[in-house]
C-alpha cells in the first residue's frame, strides 16, 4: 500500500516500525491523547451524520478513515501557527479548539462560516476546491514580512490537486520560499473519481517539479503524520521553505451525506482499508505496549458519547437566524444597496409576513 517510500511508524497491526529519517518520541500519554482525539472526532462525525439523516443538518462531510491524518497534522501545529482547512477537516478543527457545535453551523445552514478564525488561528471551511492554498501562501508571505516565528498549514485533497489554484500556490510557495506546509489528504476518491484520474504519478512527486520536498506518509498512522508534519513545520519556521505532505489514506464513508459510493466503488476495496483503520492500530499499540487498560478505553468512549450528545443538543437548539442577518457583515463599512435591501425586506416582513 502506498509504495516503498511510504513513511510509516506504526503498522496496521499496531506494531512500531523503524524509519531511517523519522522516529516517534511521543510519550504514552501523548499517544493516548491522540487516541482520545481520534475516538472523539469519529464519534462526533457519526453523530453529525445521524443528525443529517434525521433532517437536522443540511449536509455533512464525514471524515471516517482520515482521523490520523487530521489529528497527527493538527497536533503538530503550534499555538502560534495558522491553518487553512478545506471542508472535511473536523479533526483539525478539534485540535485547534473549535467547539463541535461551531463546526456544525455551516452544515446546519445557519451561517456560511462558523467561528472566529483569529481566535483559533484556524480559517473557515473553503468549499471551492483549492482556493485556500493561495490564502495560505499569502498568509505565509505576511509571516515572512513580519519576521514572525510562525508557519502555515493548508489542507486539500487529491481532487483539489488538479486545481489551477493549488498548482499556482506551489509555484508561489517555492518562488517566495513561503513558510507553508501543504497537507494533501489523498483519500483515493474525489466524490466518484479515483485518484488515477487526477494524476499519473504519485501526488507527492509533484513537489519535485516545483522545487521543494514532497513526502508520502501513511495517512492512517497518527505517529508518522505527527512526526512528518512537525518536521515540515520546523523547516518552514526556520526559513527553509514549503513541504508537500501526501497523507495516503482512504475515505471510508461517502463524500458527503448526499453521495452514494456504492455506485462507483466495490465493498471489497473498502474492506481492505478497514483493516488499516487509524484508530484501532493505536488502540492495539496502547493496549499491548503501553498497558493501557480497557477501563481507560471505556472512559474515553464515554467521554466521546457525552460530547456527541452535547453536539446533538447544541444542533437541535440552533434556530434559523433572523432573515435580516443576510445584510450583516457584507461589507466592513455600510453600503447603500445592502441597506436598501434590509429596508425592503424589513418592511415586507413587518407588513406581510407574520
Amino acid at each position, binding site marked *: 500500500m502506498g509504495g516503498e517510500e511510504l513513511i510509516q511508524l506504526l503498522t496496521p497491526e499496531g506494531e512500531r516500525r523503524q524509519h531511517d529519517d523519522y522516529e516517534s518520541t511521543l510519550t504514552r500519554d501523548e499517544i493516548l491523547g491522540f487516541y482520545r482525539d481520534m475516538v472523539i472526532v469519529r464519534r462526533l462525525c457519526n453523530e453529525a451524520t445521524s443528525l443529517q439523516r434525521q433532517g437536522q443538518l443540511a449536509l455533512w462531510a464525514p471524515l471516517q478513515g482520515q482521523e490520523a491524518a487530521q489529528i497527527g497534522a493538527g497536533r503538530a501545529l503550534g499555538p502560534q501557527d495558522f491553518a487553512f482547512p478545506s471542508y472535511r477537516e473536523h479533526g483539525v478543527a478539534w485540535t485547534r479548539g473549535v467547539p463541535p457545535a461551531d463546526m456544525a453551523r455551516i452544515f446546519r445552514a445557519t*451561517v*456560511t*462560516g462558523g467561528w*472566529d*478564525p*483569529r481566535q483559533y488561528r484556524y*480559517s*473557515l471551511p*473553503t468549499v*471551492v476546491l483549492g*482556493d485556500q*492554498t*493561495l*490564502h*495560505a*501562501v*499569502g*498568509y*505565509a*508571505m*505576511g*509571516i*515572512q*514580512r*513580519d519576521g514572525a516565528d510562525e508557519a502555515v498549514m493548508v489542507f486539500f485533497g487529491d481532487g483539489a490537486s488538479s486545481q*489551477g*489554484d493549488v498548482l*499556482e*500556490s506551489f*509555484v*508561489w510557495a517555492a*518562488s517566495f520560499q513561503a513558510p507553508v506546509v501543504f497537507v494533501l489528504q489523498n483519500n483515493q476518491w474525489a466524490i466518484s473519481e479515483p485518484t488515477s484520474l487526477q494524476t499519473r504519478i504519485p501526488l507527492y512527486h509533484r513537489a519535485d517539479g516545483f522545487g521543494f520536498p514532497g513526502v508520502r506518509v501513511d495517512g492512517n498512522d497518527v505517529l508518522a503524520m505527527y512526526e512528518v508534519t512537525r518536521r515540515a513545520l520546523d523547516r518552514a519556521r526556520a526559513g527553509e521553505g514549503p513541504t508537500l505532505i501526501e497523507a495516503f489514506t482512504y475515505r471510508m464513508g461517502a463524500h458527503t451525506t448526499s453521495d452514494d459510493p456504492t455506485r462507483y466503488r466495490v465493498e471489497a476495496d473498502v474492506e481492505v482499508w478497514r483493516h488499516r483503520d487509524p484508530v484501532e492500530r493505536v488502540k492495539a499499540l496502547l493496549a499491548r505496549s503501553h498497558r493501557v487498560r480497557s477501563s481507560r478505553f471505556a472512559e474515553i468512549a464515554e467521554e466521546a458519547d457525552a460530547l456527541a450528545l452535547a453536539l446533538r443538543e447544541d444542533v437541535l437548539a440552533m434556530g434559523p437566524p433572523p432573515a435580516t442577518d443576510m445584510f*450583516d*457583515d*457584507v*461589507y*466592513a*463599512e455600510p*453600503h*447603500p*444597496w*445592502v441597506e436598501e435591501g434590509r429596508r425592503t425586506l424589513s418592511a415586507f416582513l413587518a407588513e406581510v409576513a407574520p
Partner: protein
Amino acid sequence: MTMMTMAKALNEGLRRALESDRHVLLLGEDIGKLGGVFRVTDGLQKDFGEDRVIDAPLAESAIVGTSVGLAMRGYRTVVEIQFDGFVYPAFDQIVSQAAKLHKRSAGAYTMGLVIRLPFQGGIGAVEHHSESPEAYFVHTAGLRVVACSTPNDAYWMIQQAVAHDDPVIFCEPKCRYWDKGEVDLENPPTGLFDAVVRRPGRDVTVVAYGSMVKVALQAAEAAAEEGRDLEVIDLRGLSPMDLDTVAASVERTGRLLVIQEAPPIASVGSEIVAAIQERCFYSLRAPATRVSGFYVPYPASKIEDEFRPSVDRVLWSLDQLMEHDS
C-alpha cells in the same frame, strides 16, 4: 497644485500609501524594475524594496488569492492586473473569496485589498487589452468598484481605496494615463464613491465614468454650440453609486443620458437607468438612454472607434433623446 499625468498621479498616490503604512504592499506582474507596463509603479520597488513592491509570478488567480491571504494577516495589498482581459483567471478568488470572506467570517477578516484594473479601450491594442469588465464586479455584493477619470482623482482615490476596509476594484482608464491635469497634493476632492458634477447644465444629465468623462465633456461643448446645455456627472463610484447626485440632476433636467464603453446589456448604465426611472419617473421628459459599446466581443482595434461611444455618436443619441421630448 502640480501638473502631472494620471499615471504619475497614481504613482504619487501609491507612494504616499506606501509611506503611510508599512502594511501596504504592491503586487503584480512587471511592477518592479520595469515599473509596470504603464509605468504606474515606476521607481517604487527601488524606494520601498522587493518585499513591499513585489514582482509576481505570472498567475492572476494567485496574485489575488495571495493578497486575500495577506489581508487575513493584516496587510493591504494593491494588486496590479496588467490588463482588463487578464482579470478573469482571478475571477473566482475575487467573487468567491475576497467578496465573501468578511461575511463568512462574521466580520473577523477585513479584506483590505485593492485590485487595480487598467480598463476600457482606445489605445489600438490587440485582443484582451481593451475591455470593460466592471459590471461583473458591480454585480457582486461584497466588492466595491470605482473608476477615476482625472489625475487629481487618481491621486486621491487610490489612497482612499487603499485605506478602505473592503475590497476595491479600482478601474483606471488606460487611454487617459498620459493626459495631464492639476493635482492638489494637500486636499482630497471628495469621498471615494461620490459623484462629481464636472459641468453644470440645465437641459440633459449626462453620466459617464472613466474614459467617457472626457467624451461627455467634449460632447457638452459641441452641444452648447447648438444651444443645448448638458450637465456632465462623473460617476466615480460604481459600487456604491452616488445615485442621489444623479437623481437630483435629473429632477432638474428631466433627461438622462448615460455614456459607457461597456456593452449595454446588464451594465452600469442599465443600473443607472433602472434606478433613475424608479426614483424620477415623474420628472423624466424622455426615456432614460444609454450610449454604449455594442453587445459583441471587443472588436479588432482598427474599428474600435466605432465601438466606443464617440462625441458624434453621443450627439446623435442626444438628438434622438430630444426628439422624444414631451
